[in-house]
């Protein structure tokens, strides 16, 4: 049987120090899907991504990538399972040049884009390749963070709030890129507060509240769940 879930989280509990932030998260991300985690600030969306990338003080439960348990794999080998991560703060290394940032990550797969393709998508990055990444604007840093992960070639990308604080022109650019990645068959787990942005991209939605999944539904059922979305997001 071919495992259809690219990523499966089951009964994930997570702690920051002594305080518990996740209380049994269940999420399935089918291969090739874009799945959005929605919820208010502090609901546990980012924490869920940190649980997958093992950045919490303590994490319990099962995390499977392509059917294989990865919660016991050493942290520096996670990327080699085909997992790419773009953290909320972009995670660009400020003291490294743009080019050094781009070339830093080990190649883990081949589903990524070529450097030329990325340069045509993000011309700013090409122009500023010798500048320290710390001198880029927020939008440029986001593009650098995305480009860097794509060059490594993972088949699953964890994206934390890619449009947060960005000018509309960058939001549009990132939406175009994600559409393109979807067409290429990449699996994306997206944490995003911007509903207008997410609406056009996600195939499936998970609503998270107080460290628990309170509802999930496919994109087709979006309109039936407007009331729930408003309640959970508090808009």
């Amino acid at each position: 049987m071919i495992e259809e879930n690219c990523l499966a989280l089951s009964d994930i509990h997570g702690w920051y120090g002594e305080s518990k932030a996740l209380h049994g998260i269940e999420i399935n991300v089918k291969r090739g899907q874009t799945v959005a985690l929605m919820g208010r600030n502090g609901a546990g969306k980012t924490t869920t991504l940190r649980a997958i990338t093992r950045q919490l003080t303590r994490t319990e439960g099962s995390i499977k990538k392509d059917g294989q348990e990865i919660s016991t794999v050493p942290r520096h080998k996670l990327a080699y399972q085909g997992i790419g991560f773009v953290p909320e703060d972009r995670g660009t290394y400020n003291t490294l040049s743009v080019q050094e940032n781009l070339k830093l990550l080990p190649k883990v797969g081949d589903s990524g884009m070529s450097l030329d393709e990325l340069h045509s998508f993000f011309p700013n990055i090409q122009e500023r390749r010798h500048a320290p990444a710390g001198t880029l604007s927020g939008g440029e840093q986001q593009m650098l963070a995305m480009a860097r992960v794509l060059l490594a070639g993972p088949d699953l990308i964890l994206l934390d709030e890619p449009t947060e604080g960005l000018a509309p022109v960058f939001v549009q650019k990132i939406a175009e890129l994600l559409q393109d990645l979807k067409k290429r068959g990449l699996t994306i787990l997206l944490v995003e507060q911007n509903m207008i942005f997410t609406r056009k991209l996600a195939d499936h939605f998970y609503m998270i509240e107080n460290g628990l999944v309170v509802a999930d539904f496919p994109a087709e059922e979006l309109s039936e769940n407007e009331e729930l979305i408003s309640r959970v997001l508090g808009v």
Partner: protein
Amino acid sequence: MEIFGISVPALAGQLLIGLFNGAFYALLSLGLAVIFGMLRIINFAHGAFYMLGAFSAYMLSAYLGASFWLSLLIVPLVLAALAAVLERSMLQRLAGLDPLYGLLLTFGFALILEGGMQYVFGVAGQPYSPPASLSGASNLGFMFMPHYRAFVIVVSLFVCFGTWLLIERTKIGSILRAATENPSLSEVFGLNVPVLITATYAFGAALAGIAGIMAAPVFQVSPHMGSNLIIVVFAVVVIGGMGSIMGAIISGFALGLVEGLTKVFYSEASNVVVFVIMAIVLYFRPAGLFGKDA
């Protein structure tokens, strides 16, 4: 000929001695800076590593008849291996704790290593001769230049700037800098940070080993040779800026020179001048001359 009432050969001679001492300051403070940058640990065992470098050269020569040149290759590897074992077996367990624990542990290493060598060899210095090919001196006209001292300065410059190039200009260096800036995220990206940390500690110890073997023919090979020097080296690191590679190199050589000049013009102050400069630098730039948080 005289400058400020000091004869040129005397002045040049003191400058050379200053540069020579600076060569050791630079090598040792560079090792401390590299280790601090990556491990966030002030390596109090650094002076003991330097002392072990000198003793390794002495033992290789006395027991195995190894030449200076062979030892110059072997000693850094011996120190790197020892440091890797210490890091893997003990220091690694302190990851994530307050850096003070690392300082205490490495201070413990230093006491044990010094005590061990004192138990075996006593406190008196052991002799170690410079290689015959580097004995003698050249008359430069304005001064006599001992070959061995010139050799030490050149090797130190070469190793220091080689290290700088490695860290600032290569892929390995960019990986190290990335792992320094954000270790946990770097691991998520697939960089093997634990191995990088061990390698960095080993590399820093190897630098101390190089300084140790080069010191062996000039200074006495004794168990406490490191603890006498390391206090000055810590001051050099503070002046340069903790963790700054170029800061460590430049302030190492510069403070050696300043010390040499102080010996000429006001020799009574030569032992304290580095600390006076440290106090002044800390007052105006708490992060050091090349520190990034100033």
